[in-house]
Every structure is written in structure tokens, then in C-alpha cells.
């Protein structure tokens, strides 16, 4: 019996539904199926509050609601309040939250509206572009834990940030850039008006005092633009000169500074040309390009401490006989903590009493749980599944295993060969050539006609202004990023798209990347004819609902029977409980057979899937096959990638059999199993040494160093924070298909960048000789520069075309793609 019929998708999170699902919500009188109890709770809460419009306006389906145990109570303690919030007038408190799973304005609206209805919430603002919330509340009327629990109940994960973090820094940077840009824009409009009058005056004649007046006014307006708006160019040019690596900003700062000073001198002396219009126009367009690039960087907003995300919100510290909930950073070596099933381990330590199954997949990539007993080591960030254990903390903070992983990551990232970006490569040449040329022109004209020397040199500098060049790439990147965001790909480092277009190898992690990372019920064999399949499902679901084991999640979509009592969990073996007077066991075969009368050998053991057996005192009743199924679009995506010229491979830390099985299902993809983080790193390095450009797709902590070492790294939105921080692209939502779209878009992007650069170079080749020979006035140069910049921006906008979006989202005919 096959249970894998993806009839439709979950109304809340968009995951494929299994046929046995019975969870549903009613919206506008229609029954909509959802995938699990978590999604049902979130959707019902949203609908009960009359916020059903959320579903009409959101741009991407939500995340499956994690069933994990969250205990927010520790945030109500005075110490936590002091750490995460700050006090404002009237005993109210303010804090910043990062909200995981927030992707669009509709999500932000949902959280704001829902929280505003809570008593005690004074103010809440959720920023959809940075996924952060500013919350002001009255701790006496509303404990923080209740507000966090409410956000969690809506299907998002709130992460309180320690106050005055990088959020404030990013906001400050953005606001400063906006102010500079605004001043330059307003000033440009004004100065250009005066410039038009002055040019008209040159042609038709103008009263000398009026001309002088207009020049003074231009000087007045241009001064704050040069001193305030253009400041970053001067600073960065100076720094790049100190570092002996002249960048784009050197000629920029030179032309702005020289043109401004010359114009000031001309104005004060009352003769000679003024170039205020060129100065401000130039500044404005450059600032615009910089601003676009900065917005990109901020949108990803994943800079802050990623490791903290893997630790639990709180844990139970034992103090003699008392137990107290504390946040992980309050723990010290030597403390004793009690870890309940479903909680994450807060620090490295050794088990002092108890035994449990631990999910270490975050660190090892191994999907099966490990048994840990008294005396065994536990690693911070791993998940306790079944038993209650007490642990003595041995290492915290910088000494912990997690911190070591992050140092490995840091090293991998810094050793990443500097792939010279196209525009940067061009820039160094260009800058040097322009400066040399300007010097030659200056020398020549000082000899030939010294009165025209400055105007000509300025025309050369303005006409060759790397404006089109410096705008070409950011504008195209901004357009491509917007397109990809619509298709479900978040770009965190824009320049990675250039590298993505040339990729020819793509490596996937298996667990959590190619697969969904959690087992699903794949099939069932009924061993005892007196029971029907639904009866077995009911019994199994009832027992498994008492377990936090990852295998138990596979039973969550089933409807449990009621009346379970006396449930016991045996670490590494299974569960036992009484239903309707009968004692049932579920778990490993040996556990079920242990102490039952009839020994059945009908149970088969496949390496490709995990068997869970249900039995009673008489013997086994049913065998459930659980597999970590591949994402429904994995095979399709790999074929599309192959059509685009990317050879796929699997690099997994899992055992050989499941990896080989996955590779077979995907159509004989090369696969390496049993790889540690170092092994994966070696694999990527070897491929790169052969001259391949490697894309790595992963989700776990163990993938993070590999992600940092690959040419382009892609993380899954549901993956760990550490993986996302090291990733260039993040796939939002469920599914891998946006990958192909990303490749297509990156190739179109590269074509457009090439066109833009070609245009910029062509324009300069024609204009420079004219300018050097003194035929072009600086104002003509400024006009040509602006026109050429405009052309470049318009060309970049083609990436946003609707048609392109549609064809990229749907699988195009393979032949067509291959020729594209």
C-alpha cells in the first residue's frame, strides 16, 4: 500500500499532503486540508482572529509549523528582560525580534494585527524587508513569554535580539545613505535649472550680474552636495590609495573634487567656466548605484550571531533541589542542567544520569538518531528526542564544539580564492588608463593652449566617468535579484550571480536538501489479518504522539485513537503503552518481539527505509516503512539543471545505502556517502582543482564550511542559520525548482552586464578622443555620461520583464533551454 499520493498541498505551508491526512481548516465555508496538527493550529488561530486575508496576499507559502518544544518562560525572568529588552517610560519595555519565516508584507501585517489585539502590547512594528520587529509592551499586563508564544502560534519563530545589535547599525547606515541621496537629488534638480539658464545665457546673451548671481547660487547649493553627499567617495578613495589599490572611487573623487574647486575659483574670480551641474549630476547617479547595492546587502540581513540560533531558548538549571529556567548564555561549566525530550542541548556536557536518543543530524548529517547514556558526551545544539537526562556542563561559548565549527567556517570563507568580479577587473584597468590619459592630455594642452587645459582634462574625466560602468553591474544585479525574489530565491551576495552563470557542477547534500529532512510514511504491511490498515494507523499514531523522536513525526498526519495510558519510552528501542486494555509496543523489531509469544519472521529489513513495527503481546501486528522521501521536484530539477549544462552530484554524511537509493531515484547521479564536513570540503576542493565551477546546495551545520568554500553556495530556507549565513542564495519555500530559474536568470544577467559594459567601453572609445582633442565641453560630457547611464539602467530593467518571469518559472522545452 502506497501512501505517497501527493493529492494536493497543505493550505498553510504548501507541503505535499499524504493521503492519510485528516487535518483541515474551514475558510469561507470550504474545507481546506492542512498537513499536520501544527499547521492546523496556526491556520485555525489565524482564521479565528478574522485574519484570513493573510492567505490572499502572501507571496510565498509559509513554513511547516515546527512541532518542537519551545519554552519561552525563561524570557520572563528579570535577567533575561535586562538582557533582551530595555526599559522606557512607565515601566514599559522595548525589544527587537528577528522573525524566522517572515517573507512578505502579508506576514508582517498578520503578526502586527494579531499582536496588537493582545492586552499589554503598546506598540509593534514589523519590517517585512528586514524580517525584524520592534515591540513595546507592558511586562505586568503581558509577560514576554505570552507574546513570543503568540508569534510562534501563528507559524513563525521569534528570536529576541540582544539590544542595540546590528539591526540598529543597518538602519543607521541605510538612513544616512538615504539622506545623502536625497540631498544630492534635490540639489541636482535645483542646480540643473540654474545651469539651463546659464547655457541659455551663453547662447542668447545674459546680464553679467545675473550670470554672476546664478553662479553664486549654484555654488551655494552644490557645496553641501560635495561636502556631505559625496563624502563617502572621498573617504573611500583616500582609503584605497592608502591601501595602494586604487579603485573606482579615485577618479570619481578626483573629478568631483577638481571640478568643484575649479568652479569655486571661477565663481569667485568672476570668469572661467563653472561645472556645478556636472558635479551634482555625477554625485547623484553614483549615489543611486551605491544605494541599490546597499539595499541588496541589507535585505539578506543575516549577519548576526548565527550560532545562538541553534541553542535552545532556555533550559532547566538544577540548583541543589531547585530547578530554574535560564537562557543558555547564563550557563557556566560545572552547572547541572536537566534536558527534557524535545529540547535542544544548551551546552557541551556529559550525561550524569538518564539515557536518551539524540538527533545529531545538525552536526553529522546522519539522519538516524543516536543512543546516549550516562557518561556519554552531548554536544550543544543537538536535539534530545526521547528521555529525560541530567547533564554536567563542560564547555560553553567559545570553547564549545559549535564555536569550533564556526571557526572552521571562518577559515574556509577566508581561504576562498578571490574570484575577481568582472566589473572590478575592468575597473582597475580602466581607472589606471583614465588617470594616465588625463595626465597626458593635461601635459599636452598645458603646452599647446594652457587656457583650455583644465576644461579639456575635466571633459576627459567626466566623459570617461565610470558612471555607466559602475552603474551597469549594480542596476542589473538589483533587477535580477528582484526577479529571483519573486521566483522564491533570496540573493544574499549579488556578485555570486555572476559566478553562478558559469557553474558546471552542482553538489547536493542529501538529508534536508534533496529530501525533506524528516521521514514520511511510505508504506505499510499488515501482519495480522484481524486488523485493518486504518486501525493500525490509529494505534501507531496514538502511541507515537507521545514521542519527540523524528520517526514519530511521520505519524503526525494520521488520526490517533483516543484513550492511551501508561506510555513509556525506551531509549533507542521504542514506545510502550496501553490502549483499550491491551498493551502495545511500537519501535524496533527486537523491542516488539522482546517478551511476546509468537516469533514472526515475516518482517523484512530494507536498507533503504526504516522499519517501525507495531505489536502486542501476541506478536507483531504491522510494519510501517518510513523513508526520508525526496522532494517532489528534485528529479525534475536535476534534469533541468542537466539541460543547462550542470552535472549534479550528491555529497552526504549519511550512510551508503540511503544515499545510493536516492541517487538511483534521481536518475543515476554520482554520489558520495559517509562524508564528514572535512570530506565534503575536500570533495569541493578537488572538483575546483580540476577547473570546475562548483555550486553547493546544503542545509546543515556540517554543510556550512563547504558552502563557504564552493564557488556559489545555496542554502535551504528551512536549514540551519549557520548554513544560511554562509550561503550566497537561499531557496525560500519548499522545493528545489527555483534553482534552475536562478541559473537561467544568472546567465541572462551576465549577458546584460556584458552588453552594458560593451556599451560603456564603446561610448568611451568614441568620446575620449573627442574630449581629449578639446571638442567636447564639460556640460556635453555630463549629458553624454547621464544618457549612457540611463541606457544602461533601462537595459538592466529588461531582466524584470514579465515574459521572462513566466518562462523561467515553468519548465521550458529542454531543447529551447539548451540553446538559450
Amino acid at each position, binding site marked *: 500500500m502506497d501512501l505517497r499520493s501527493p493529492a494536493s498541498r497543505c493550505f498553510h505551508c504548501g507541503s505535499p499532503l499524504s493521503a492519510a491526512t485528516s487535518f483541515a481548516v474551514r475558510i469561507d465555508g470550504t474545507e481546506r486540508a492542512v498537513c499536520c496538527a501544527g499547521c492546523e493550529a496556526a491556520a485555525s488561530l489565524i482564521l479565528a*482572529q478574522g485574519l484570513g486575508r493573510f492567505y490572499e496576499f502572501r507571496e510565498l507559502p509559509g513554513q511547516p509549523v515546527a512541532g518542537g518544544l519551545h519554552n519561552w518562560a525563561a524570557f520572563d525572568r528579570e535577567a533575561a528582560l535586562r538582557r533582551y529588552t530595555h526599559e522606557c517610560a512607565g515601566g514599559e519595555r522595548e525589544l527587537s525580534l528577528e522573525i524566522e519565516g517572515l517573507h512578505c508584507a502579508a506576514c508582517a501585517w498578520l503578526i502586527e494585527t494579531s499582536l496588537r489585539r493582545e492586552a499589554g502590547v503598546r506598540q509593534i512594528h514589523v519590517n517585512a524587508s528586514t524580517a525584524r520587529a520592534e515591540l513595546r509592551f507592558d511586562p505586568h499586563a503581558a509577560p514576554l513569554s505570552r507574546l513570543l508564544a503568540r508569534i510562534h502560534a501563528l507559524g513563525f519563530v521569534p528570536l529576541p535580539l540582544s539590544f542595540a545589535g546590528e539591526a540598529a547599525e543597518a538602519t543607521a547606515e541605510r*538612513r544616512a545613505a538615504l539622506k545623502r541621496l536625497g540631498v544630492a537629488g534635490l540639489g541636482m534638480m535645483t542646480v540643473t535649472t540654474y545651469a539651463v539658464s546659464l547655457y541659455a545665457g551663453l547662447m542668447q546673451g545674459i546680464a553679467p550680474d545675473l550670470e554672476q548671481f546664478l553662479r553664486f547660487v549654484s555654488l551655494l547649493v552644490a557645496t553641501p552636495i560635495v561636502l556631505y553627499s559625496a563624502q563617502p567617495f572621498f573617504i573611500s578613495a583616500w582609503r584605497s590609495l592608502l591601501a595602494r589599490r586604487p579603485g573606482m572611487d579615485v577618479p570619481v573623487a578626483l573629478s568631483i573634487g577638481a571640478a568643484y574647486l575649479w568652479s569655486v575659483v571661477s565663481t569667485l574670480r568672476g570668469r572661467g567656466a563653472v561645472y556645478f551641474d556636472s558635479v551634482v549630476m555625477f554625485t547623484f547617479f553614483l549615489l543611486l548605484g551605491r544605494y541599490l547595492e546597499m539595499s541588496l546587502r541589507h535585505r539578506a540581513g543575516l549577519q548576526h550571531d548565527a550560532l545562538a540560533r541553534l541553542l535552545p531558548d532556555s533550559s532547566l538549571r538544577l540548583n541543589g533541589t531547585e530547578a530554574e529556567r535560564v537562557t543558555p548564555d547564563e550557563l557556566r561549566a560545572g552547572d547541572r542542567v536537566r534536558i527534557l525530550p524535545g529540547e535542544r542541548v544548551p551546552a557541551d556536557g556529559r550525561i550524569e544520569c538518564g539515557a536518551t536518543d539524540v538527533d545529531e543530524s545538525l552536526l553529522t548529517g546522519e539522519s538516524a538518531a543516536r543512543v546516549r547514556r550516562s557518561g556519554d558526551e552531548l554536544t550543544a545544539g543537538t536535539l534530545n528526542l526521547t528521555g529525560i537526562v541530567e547533564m554536567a556542563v563542560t564547555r560553553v561559548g567559545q570553547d564549545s564544539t559549535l564555536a569550533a565549527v564556526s571557526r572552521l567556517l571562518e577559515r574556509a570563507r577566508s581561504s576562498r580564492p578571490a574570484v575577481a568580479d568582472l566589473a572590478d577587473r575592468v575597473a582597475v584597468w580602466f581607472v589606471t588608463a583614465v588617470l594616465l590619459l588625463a595626465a597626458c592630455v593635461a601635459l599636452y594642452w598645458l603646452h599647446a593652449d594652457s587656457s583650455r587645459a583644465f576644461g579639456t582634462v575635466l571633459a576627459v574625466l567626466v566623459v570617461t566617468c565610470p558612471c555607466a560602468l559602475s552603474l551597469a553591474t549594480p542596476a542589473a544585479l538589483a533587477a535580477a535579484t528582484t526577479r529571483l525574489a519573486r521566483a522564491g530565491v533570496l540573493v544574499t551576495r549579488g556578485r555570486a550571480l555572476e559566478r553562478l552563470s558559469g557553474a558546471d557542477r552542482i553538489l547536493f547534500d542529501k538529508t534536508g536538501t534533496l529530501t525533506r529532512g524528516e521521514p514520511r510514511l511510505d508504506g505499510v504491511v499488515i501482519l495480522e489479518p484481524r486488523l485493518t490498515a486504518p486501525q493500525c494507523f490509529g494505534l501507531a499514531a496514538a502511541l507515537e504522539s507521545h514521542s519527540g523522536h523524528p520517526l514519530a513525526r511521520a505519524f503526525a498526519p494520521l488520526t490517533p485513537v483516543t484513550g492511551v495510558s501508561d506510555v513509556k519510552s525506551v531509549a533507542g528501542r521504542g514506545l510502550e503503552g496501553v490502549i483499550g486494555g491491551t498493551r502495545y509496543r511500537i519501535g524496533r523489531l527486537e523491542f516488539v518481539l522482546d517478551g511476546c509469544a509468537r516469533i514472526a519472521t515475516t518482517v523484512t529489513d530494507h536498507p533503504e527505509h526504516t522499519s517501525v513495527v507495531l505489536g502486542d503481546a501476541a506478536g507483531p501486528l504491522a510494519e510501517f516503512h518510513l523513508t526520508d522521501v525526496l522532494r517532489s521536484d528534485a528529479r525534475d530539477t536535476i534534469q533541468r539543471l542537466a539541460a543547462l549544462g550542470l552535472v549534479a552530484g550528491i555529497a552526504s554524511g549519511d550512510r551508503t545505502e540511503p544515499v545510493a537509493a536516492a541517487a538511483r531515484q534521481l536518475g543515476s547521479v554520482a554520489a558520495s556517502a559517509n562524508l564528514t564536513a572535512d570530506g565534503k570540503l575536500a570533495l569541493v576542493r578537488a572538483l575546483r582543482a580540476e577547473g570546475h565551477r562548483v555550486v553547493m546546495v546544503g542545509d546543515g551545520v556540517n554543510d556550512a564550511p563547504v558552502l563557504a568554500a564552493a564557488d556559489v553556495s545555496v542554502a535551504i530556507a528551512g536549514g540551519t542559520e549557520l548554513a544560511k549565513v554562509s550561503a550566497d542564495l537561499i531557496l525560500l519555500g519548499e522545493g528545489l525548482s527555483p534553482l534552475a530559474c536562478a541559473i537561467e536568470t544568472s546567465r541572462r544577467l551576465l549577458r546584460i552586464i556584458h552588453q552594458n559594459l560593451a556599451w560603456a567601453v564603446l561610448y568611451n572609445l568614441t568620446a575620449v578622443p573627442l574630449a581629449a582633442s578639446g571638442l567636447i565641453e564639460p556640460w556635453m560630457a555630463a549629458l553624454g555620461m547621464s544618457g549612457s547611464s540611463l541606457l544602461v539602467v533601462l537595459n538592466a530593467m529588461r531582466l524584470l520583464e514579465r515574459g521572462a518571469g513566466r518562462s523561467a518559472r515553468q519548465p521550458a522545452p529542454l531543447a529551447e533551454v539548451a540553446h538559450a
Partner: protein
Amino acid sequence: MNVIYLLIPLGLGLLALSVWAYFWAVRSGQFDDLDSPGVQILLDDDRAPPPPAPDSRDA
């Protein structure tokens, strides 16, 4: 043409005023999130929220 000696300073005054207004807008966070407010006007409606159901608390 003498009127221009009055109009241009007036224009500069307006410029200063708009820069001030723009700085105020940036400082008060009007440009921090350019995506949400546009959608919020569509989402917010005047229907009163349903009375809070007792079971909707902390699901």
C-alpha cells in the same frame, strides 16, 4: 528680470524646507520599510475582529 532676485532666494528657501522635511521623514522611519505599507492598506479592513474565542489563546 529683477524679480528673479526675489524668486531664486524663495526657491532656495523651499529647497531648504524640503530637505528638512525629507530628513525628518527619514529619521522617523518612513523609508525603512517600503514594501509593507502598500499592502497593509489592502489587508486592513473595517470589520470588527471577532470576539476572542477562549480556545484561540496560545494554541
